[in-house]
């Protein structure tokens, strides 16, 4: 069965600093990988996704993520964090081919301090 681990429950960064949120997945074949963001009181919004090809994926709002098969990781990065990036971030994995079902991680809450 597919699964996702987000080891950091809560992260605090200063505005303007760089950000990296960790995500490790477990899946037997090549996975489909995603990052979603959830602002307070809002639903989830897709930031970016990886299906195949270039392992460095660009998303919305200046985010990027890198798929590393050897480390079973798909970490999310942003070079300079803005106060509006404060939210909860979820990594998710789906299986490639066949019925599409997405499994979410437990989330990382990002706090941005001025």
């Amino acid at each position, binding site marked *: 069965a597919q699964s996702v681990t987000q080891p950091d429950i809560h992260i605090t960064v200063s505005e303007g600093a760089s950000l990296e949120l960790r995500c490790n997945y477990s899946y037997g074949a090549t996975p489909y990988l995603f990052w979603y963001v959830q602002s307070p*009181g809002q639903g*989830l*919004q897709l930031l970016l996704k990886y299906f195949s090809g270039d392992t460095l994926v660009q998303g919305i709002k200046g985010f990027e993520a890198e798929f590393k098969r050897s480390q079973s990781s798909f970490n999310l990065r942003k070079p300079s964090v803005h106060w509006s990036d404060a939210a909860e971030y979820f990594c998710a994995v789906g299986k490639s081919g066949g019925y*599409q079902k*997405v499994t979410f991680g*437990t989330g990382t809450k990002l706090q941005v301090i001025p």
Partner: protein
Amino acid sequence: EAGVAQSPRYKIIEKRQSVAFWCNPISGHATLYWYQQILGQGPKLLIQFQNNGVVDDSQLPKDRFSAERLKGVDSTLKIQPAKLEDSAVYLCASSLDVVSSYEQYFGPGTRLTVT
């Protein structure tokens, strides 16, 4: 383009009572999902519809939860009777179809508190 609509946004009930949530997906989206998000956890898929048929309800507690999408558009999720552990945010999402299910659009959710 209007997003996924959900109502109510908040609901407080006592245990053993019944509750229903409503979801209206984005127009033209064939696939509709209900997720349960317990505080501190990621969303967990309860049920997935393709038009008005069920694709996956393997994680739906069928002794107390039910869902329907009769006309292949909007959907209702019901809990009867509710337990304390049902306190969560219930998210509805939709996508064009099962193949593009990764492009899911989420509603704002309904926060349920069971006392």
